[in-house]
């Protein structure tokens, strides 16, 4: 009976475009998921709550139960160490425009957080997907480029609004990895270098990256190209712009991480070991590394990475040890820092989230919606 259930589940997942990992990992505080774990889901972003790092996807695939046409949205929350990618660079959820088609790897909720996301409305329970805590979300540009896959233009039919492409390079394990026809229209942004060009400038045999969005064809897994980058210069410019946005955001909000261990001193302060999430842009880690002698500000944060009033609700500790480990697990930067504090905050506990500031970064007051105001507000 159990075997039949499992076969049924696998069949259902396959029809949803889901792939079960070898290890059905349940996220734990203080523990990064093993490499390759997580359930692949793709879909289009239709709702966003960037401050709380939550949103909802219209999942690709019409099975089961005519899901694509009639099913409920799939609400998700980003895990604390989850990374977003946009235009080939690290991003925040807010950087992904509504309508962006994304790929992600998801887990069941961590223990005790099963109710983080609201249940589906009555009658829609059949559409529930348990894997609603994301490890990553990537637009098509980032997803394929980071895995070495690009698209070669086969042909463009402006009159019919179609572009035929074939995958090239290293094939992505998930996503689309076969020749495909996408919609294209006169609002598709076509980039050459830093310039917007016309559809007619898309020549066959050109290797491109593209981003996708909803298609009016109403058919399952039919997409419209929202953006198309014709050359390396165009792709590099888009990536660089997003990289800068990401760097500025992190310098203002500080780098997230969690606490691995705390040694409390009964005469005041203690030693705190923390691991920074990642991988983020290297320059951010270098800022920290290069300002070690000034100590780091460490603000207490919540699972959605919101801080309280981080410029005040932090303590500055001295760096005792900076350790980098190659090939870190997903979510980790591989950077572990041991710090000594004269005073400890209550939020400095193993598994709890913090945000870490370099002395090189200016203090700013972040917008009200990003600040936690009370225990109930968490």
């Amino acid at each position, binding site marked *: 009976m159990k075997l039949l259930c499992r076969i049924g589940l696998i069949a259902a997942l396959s029809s949803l475009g889901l792939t079960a990992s070898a290890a059905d990992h349940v996220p734990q505080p203080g523990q990064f998921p093993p490499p390759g774990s997580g359930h692949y889901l793709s879909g289009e972003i239709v709702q966003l709550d960037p401050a709380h790092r939550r949103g909802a996807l219209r999942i690709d695939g019409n099975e089961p139960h005519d899901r694509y046409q009639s099913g409920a949205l799939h609400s998700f929350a980003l895990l604390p160490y989850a990374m977003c990618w946009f235009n080939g660079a690290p991003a925040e959820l807010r950087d992904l425009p509504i309508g962006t088609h994304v790929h992600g790897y998801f887990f069941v909720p961590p223990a005790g957080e099963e109710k983080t996301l609201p249940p589906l409305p009555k009658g829609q329970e059949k559409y529930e997907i348990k894997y609603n805590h994301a490890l990553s979300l990537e637009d098509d540009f980032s997803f394929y480029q980071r895995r070495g896959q690009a698209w070669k233009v086969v042909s463009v039919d402006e009159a019919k609004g179609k572009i035929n492409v074939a995958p090239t390079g290293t094939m992505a394990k998930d996503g689309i990895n076969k020749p495909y026809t996408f919609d294209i229209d006169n609002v598709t942004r076509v980039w050459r270098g830093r310039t917007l060009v016309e559809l007619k400038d898309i020549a066959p045999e050109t290797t491109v990256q593209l981003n996708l969005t909803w298609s009016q064809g109403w058919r399952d897994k039919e997409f419209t190209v929202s953006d198309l980058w014709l050359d390396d210069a165009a792709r590099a410019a888009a990536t660089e712009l997003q990289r800068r946005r990401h760097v500025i955001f992190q310098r203002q909000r500080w780098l997230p991480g969690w606490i691995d261990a705390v040694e409390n001193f009964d*005469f005041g302060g203690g030693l705190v070991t923390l691991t920074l999430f990642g991988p983020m842009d290297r320059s951010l880690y270098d800022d920290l590394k290069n300002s070690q002698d000034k100590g780091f500000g460490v603000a207490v944060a919540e699972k959605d990475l919101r801080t309280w009033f981080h410029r005040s609700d932090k303590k500055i500790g001295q760096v005792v040890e900076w350790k980098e480990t190659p090939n870190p697990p997903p979510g980790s930067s591989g950077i572990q820092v041991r710090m000594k504090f004269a005073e400890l905050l*209550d939020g400095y*506990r*193993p598994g709890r989230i913090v945000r870490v500031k370099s002395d090189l970064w200016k203090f700013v007051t972040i917008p009200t919606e990003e600040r936690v105001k009370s225990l109930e507000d968490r």
Partner: protein
Amino acid sequence: MLVACLVADFARSDASAADAPTKAFFAEHCIRCHGEKQQKGEFRVDKLPTDFNEIGNAQRWAEVLFRINSGEMPPKKEPQPKASELGQVADWISTRIKEGEAARMAKRSPVAHYRLSREEYGHTVYDLLGVYFDVDAPGAFNEDPRWHGFERIGSMLSLSPSHVDRYFKAAETVLDRAFPESPTKASKGRSEAPTGSRWLIAPGHRRGNLRATAPGLYRIRVQLSAIPSFKGRLPHLAVWHHGLKRSIIGQDVQAPEDKPTVVEIETFLPEGGLDLLNETPGMLSDGQTPNISAMPFSSLADLKNVTPKSYKLLDEQGRSIFPLLIVDWVEWEGPILTEADQKKRDGFFPSKPGDLVDARECLKRFAARAWRRPVVDADLERFMKVIAGELAAGEKFRSAYLAGMVGVLTAKNFYYLEEGSAKQRRDQVNDWELASRLSYFLWGSLPDAELSDAAQAGKLHEPSLLRAQVARLFADPKIKRFTDAFPKQWLQLHKVGVFPPDPELYPDYDKWLEKSMVLESVSYFTEVFTRNLSLREFLSSDWTMLNSRLAMHYQLPPPKASSFERVALRPDDHRGGLLTHAGVLMLTSDGTRHRPVHRGVWISEAVFAKTPPPPPPNVEPLEPTPNNKPKATIRQQLEAHSTHANCAACHQRIDPLGFAFDNFDAIGRWRTEEAMKSGQGANPPVNASGKLPDGRAYDGPDAFKQLLVQDLDHFAEAFVEQLATFALRRAMTTDDAAALKAIARDCKAEGYRLKPVIERLVLSDLFQKR
């Protein structure tokens, strides 16, 4: 060229002035340039007088010592003496200089004056009038100068106009409190936490808002729970004075949250606002993190639901990280005037205002008691004139009479202990002077009625009576003043905390630990005194006195009591005796590093009563090991430093005394390797082995202490010298050496037990000699 040698005339003028090797040294290395034939630098040593009691001679010899120590003499181009030869000469000159200094300090004129130390002033006015006067308060009195730790040496305690001014102010204050215009009523107060809540007092935080309306004795009662830290560190309840910005008194406390206890503290308080303080290290307040004291609190369970931006008070297992005080209420009452204190004033103030006959009688009684001797009418005339003058000027009788009393307390007869007579050369103190000597020795204050009566009867000097009085003084609670003051001064405990330890290296260090260090040595001395143990216990023992804080510092199990308690030690604890007390080990350190040379000097002074020659000026301090060099212990650096013959001579004798304690860091913690911030490689292991100047080898502090124990006779002589310095308020000289030795020798049969040692000193001729 300066340095030279004596020899010829030297030998002729004073055959015993230098021993044979010293004479040979001068002949070989000095005389050629600074003698009869040549006087380079217009200086000849062969004519330098060897009367070191004369300050000018001593200064010239000090110059010779300086030139030798600094390596300037003999000049480099001349044949160089061996390190041992240099050491002998430096030691000879240094010893003579010290003897000369002691002789000058001990020199007594027909009338010798020994000013009361400020601590003795405080005790004296309390015993005289029952008035508590805080001599340590800012602006009250100048700090007394010390001589090798002793703060009651007559020749050091000079009198300046500022002293006189302060004596006037102090006298007015004391008398106004003793004889107030209207009786001072004890005030009562109470503060309590709002219903349903308790005050959480975290480390370094204060609550209570008490008030001492006037200086005096107060009784404070506090109902509280006191939670130790997860490591067993106890909360320390202290009373904090707003004006003085320091705690007045404190004690460790422990009481479960659900079983609060009531702590009662009786103490003298200066006037002003006070708070209850949790005087343990830990929580700071940077003004950003919400103030713990402002947080609503009823139980520790509340702390499980604080915001993450609050200070962390509970560990991951829900235990209190810090020692916490949880207070329900505090009550206070004071100033309390005890019947005994009130009685001290009887007969000093006229019962009938305006009655000058009675006033004269009262003033006479008062002056006799204050001056510690009989008073004749002539002594009072000038004070009676003051009273009459004040009355003539329209002052009320009380005010006029108090002016006369102020005169008594600001007369030199009060603030000086006077010994001798201007008209008669006396070699012995009289009975009144003896009474004061004894009383100030053991009680730090004036003689009581019984001692005065014995002096009045002229029988105090009789051995049987004197012995009985010593026993009585021993048994009186005021003996605590001796068991407190003597070890502090002998061991130079005032230096504990002078160099605050580097918080980076010693984050665990706190003020209560600092106080506990001093209290350990004082409690230890008190224990030896109370149980009448042998002086041997000062060198080595299998016990010590610990409170919870020190036990934690020594990594020993905490004592059961919250105060100091005698605890047994095992050999592996590496403690026992005074020399391994954290305070002793710390007072010779500089806050960052231990200093073996200073430890050696301290042992030389405290244990052998011998002060080594001073270092030459401009000695470069030891620099921290550069980061590109292998880590080296202080000892290794010193050994490199002392390869220079001029340095080696002294260091060979001083350093081994300090190296023996290299297993203890700058705050007296045991270690087997010397940790340091800079330098390459692993921390080097400690080497605490060595050889004493007499050739006996030791390996570690325990073995070193055993060598000292083998020399108990010498230590006993040195101890008697320290005791006599304290008792007689002067430096001991070579003239006293035989007497000191004899006292020590007489104590040997009794196993050098402390009380007989003190008693024999008091009964000795030395004690009664002027």
